[in-house]
């Protein structure tokens, strides 16, 4: 039987990234994916004839440009087009538009509060300070604070140097930032309800926390630390949907001789003598390799595909307690035309960006209350985009594809999810939108509704948590996924992790995949093919 150098379990974008760098280093790599398509939560699927859905992730910003460059993804078909601005529509018929043009954006903010328009300058500069710090750690392996190894000590020195560039008061602010709620954080800057609501939305996306829960301020940063062509905080559409990211990485992987096998679900990781040496597929097929890498979330990795006997008790315990509460849903729609939004100025460019319908912190908190009670939010927070306004490849001319991310949606509803309950959840989202768009309901051709149940079953995200684990301080940096396991090495030799459950966490970023590849190549004594970060000095 042929023995591969490396098996990567799961063809999520991180698994593919990991495999591509290993193949680039000359290793014989095979990626095993349970689904019939690659990409996991980064996929484009044609679910209605002629319409391509980005059915999980839908916008791109966090993906490391260093990886894009190193894997030559542009030549492998990837194109990320910046999207323009965002808008929150208000119950009183007004709106707040965060326009792409800074002059208009400022005037629009002044319409709601002159003071907020000025405070936005302070807010932007402060957020940029934290972005610069955090960005420097994305393509680095977190140091182990309990280790005495020279490398960990050096990495700590680097960390300190980075922090040293902060003044004392900034350092206190930074620590506060990680522990504050987004509402309290924003109230240090803004006074107008709509501005507060608009900027806090990004802080609850994907988390089982509310706008007043400590820790949500960091999530804002997690959504702001990416960039499109150097514009930090901007988001973009992958032409052809988010699956184009995975497809390009897979194509790059193949160009280095790597292989991807779909419909190859892994049942267990084989371990002998304290070393991983291959996997067994659900079909019973055995595949052996010198190294096994898991692209699955931490719960699946340590509680499902690894045999309990191979996992130390303490780690099993940690894995069971790993916080990955599902809190989000998704509604994807094929539209017969462009919906009207009479509340926006006619011909307004605001439909080109993110659209929201929540105008106060109070409504955001109420949406969270429903989730805590195991109900979907009656008045949810949505992040809605219509990429077909730019992208001709996702729907027929004149028709549109709409992607609606919904916060909150519980892992379990009372009595358990049924298809009828799922459809009722979707209907409540559609109702909210049609309050602002009278012709919306007439345009629906096909609707895909996804609750955590569907996300778990189809993508294999435990509890449907979009980040493969909450982004709270206790699960970040050298705590991700668990203290002592943050350097991508598993509990047995030759076994590694490369998924979003690892530093720097969820989102279409590629960084966990690349960082993990760097550690594997180091252990194998191979040349490092992963890129260094561009450094923003």
């Amino acid at each position, binding site marked *: 039987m042929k023995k591969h150098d490396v098996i990567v379990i799961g063809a999520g974008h991180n698994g593919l990234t990991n495999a591509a760098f290993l193949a680039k280093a000359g290793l014989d790599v095979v990626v095993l994916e349970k689904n019939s398509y690659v990409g996991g939560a980064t996929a484009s699927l044609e679910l209605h004839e002629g319409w391509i859905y980005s059915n999980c992730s839908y916008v791109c910003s966090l993906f490391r440009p260093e990886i894009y460059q190193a894997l030559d993804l542009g030549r492998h078909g990837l194109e990320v087009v910046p999207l323009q601005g965002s808008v929150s529509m208000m*119950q009183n018929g007004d709106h707040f538009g965060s326009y792409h043009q800074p002059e208009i954006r400022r005037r629009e903010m002044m*319409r*709601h509060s002159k003071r907020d328009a*000025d405070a936005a*300058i302070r807010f932007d500069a402060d957020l940029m300070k934290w972005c*610069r710090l955090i960005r420097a750690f994305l393509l680095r392996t977190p140091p182990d604070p309990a280790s005495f190894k020279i490398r960990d000590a050096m990495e700590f020195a680097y960390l300190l140097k980075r922090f040293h560039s*902060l003044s004392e008061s900034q350092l206190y602010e930074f620590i506060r930032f990680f522990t504050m709620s987004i509402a309290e954080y924003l109230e240090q800057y803004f*006074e*107008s309800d709509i501005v507060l609501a608009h900027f806090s939305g990004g802080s609850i996306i994907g988390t089982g926390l509310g706008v007043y829960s400590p820790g949500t301020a960091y999530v804002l940063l997690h959504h702001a630390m990416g960039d499109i062509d150097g514009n930090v905080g901007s988001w973009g559409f992958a032409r052809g949907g988010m699956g184009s990211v995975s497809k390009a990485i897979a194509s790059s992987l193949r160009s280095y001789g790597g292989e991807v096998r779909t419909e190859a679900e892994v049942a267990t990781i084989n371990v002998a003598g304290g070393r991983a040496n291959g996997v067994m597929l659900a079909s019973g097929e055995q595949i052996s390799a010198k190294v096994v890498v898991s692209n699955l979330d931490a719960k699946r990795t340590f509680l499902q595909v690894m045999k309990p006997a191979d996992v130390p008790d303490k780690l099993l315990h940690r894995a069971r307690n790993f916080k990955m509460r599902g809190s989000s849903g998704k509604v994807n729609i094929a539209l017969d035309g462009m919906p009207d939004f009479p509340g926006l100025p006619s011909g307004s*460019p605001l439909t080109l960006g993110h659209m929201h319908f929540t105008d106060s912190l109070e409504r955001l908190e109420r949406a969270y209350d429903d989730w805590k009670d195991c109900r979907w939010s009656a008045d949810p927070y949505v992040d809605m985009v219509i990429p077909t306004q730019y992208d001709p490849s996702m729907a027929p001319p004149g028709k549109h594809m709409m992607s609606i991310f919904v916060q909150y949606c519980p892992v379990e509803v009372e009595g358990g999810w049924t298809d009828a309950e799922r459809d009722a959840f979707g209907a409540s989202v559609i109702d909210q939108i049609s309050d602002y768009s009278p012709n919306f309901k007439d345009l629906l051709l096909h609707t895909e509704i996804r609750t955590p149940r569907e996300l778990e079953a189809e993508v294999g995200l435990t509890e449907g948590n979009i980040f493969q684990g909450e982004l709270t301080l206790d699960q970040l940096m050298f705590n991700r996924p668990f203290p002592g396991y943050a350097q991508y090495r598993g509990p047995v030799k030759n076994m590694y992790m490369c998924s979003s459950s690892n530093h720097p966490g969820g989102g279409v970023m590629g960084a966990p995949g690349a960082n993990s590849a760097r550690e594997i190549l180091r252990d194998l004594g191979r040349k490092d093919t992963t890129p260094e970060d561009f450094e923003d000095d």
Partner: protein
Amino acid sequence: MSKPPPNADLTPLPDYRQVLQPSPFHTRLVEHCPLQNWMSWNGYQTPRVCDVLASEYFAIRSTCSVMDLTPMEKYRIAGPDALKFLNRLVTRDVGDLKAGRVTYVVWCNDEGKVLDDGTLFHLRAGEYRLCAQHHQLDWLLLSSIGMDVSIQAETHQVAALSVQGPTSYALLTAAGVVGLDQLKPFGILHTRLRVFDLMISRTGFTGDLGYELWVEPAAALSLWDALFAPAQQGLFDVRVIGLSALEMARIEAGFIVPGDDFNTAETTVRADHDRSPFELGLDWLVNFDKPHFTGKRALLRERARPVMRRLVKLRVSGNKPPMDSFLYDAEHGRRIGTVKSQSWSPILKSNVCLADVGYSNGLVPSQIWAEIYYQKELEWRATWAECFMSEKPFWAHPRRLKTPPRNF
């Protein structure tokens, strides 16, 4: 339901199709701007160059220039604690600023780093206008907590023109302004012209004789027409100018622009990229004898240490433009700084610039050289030019101070 926003701007603003906002003078301004070379100044549609840059520059220095000043940020500050508030805000003592007088100020954050600079107008007893380079409402309101003071952004509610040049006095007098003969530099005159109220201050950003004119937006066009009436009778050459001509004049006069010559504290992201008044050479604006002001403690500490760096005025030899140049200390061969704003001075026939220069151990570098890259027919060349520090403005004509000014 959202509560009504407390500081909403209720004046109608142009919609998204109009990226740059027209000023109240716009319809007249366009007639003088055949180049259509516009830029944004605080969101207003502002000419970079109206017609011919050299003519616009020489209008400032030899006849009379008119520039739309409306976009400058303006704040109205009044109330029982207005003076207390202002004296706590700015670094200089403004306690003795009399009604009808104007003074130049800077203000800092708690770390003693400069947030912005501007001119403070004591309009009438107890009532002030603060003109600033950048948006300051947030900082002003934060700084006023606990004080009985009203602070209002009035940028859009006041139209303003800057009239600068040796014939500015003569032109305004010919246009019908009465009482200008006794107005001293930094003085304010409240008067009427035709049918509207007009405020004139003898202020400017050119280092030359000049005035700034302030009216309600509704009177903007009448003011403009009154100013240009003498020119139409063939009396004086008056030229509308854009920001490029002003830039040349202000560098010659040694005036700094926050955001161009140094990074303002509020927008600074990287450590040590902001600047204190001392580092900007504005020591004379800091008064430690007055009651507490924001940044005082940090500035006291800084004063006790040797000077680390300074924004200096440099004359650069030769004729190659020292744009974005690195500066070297010729004695030690070390790189010590960079050029910020620079211009060819047509009146001095020399390059002049403002430069951020490191002082090692508080010592002024003895010999500074600029490394200049320039281009001839698309080919790049490098050269060196010796620089000479200038304590005084590069150019300042005595006529700017004379009262009454010369009537041509």
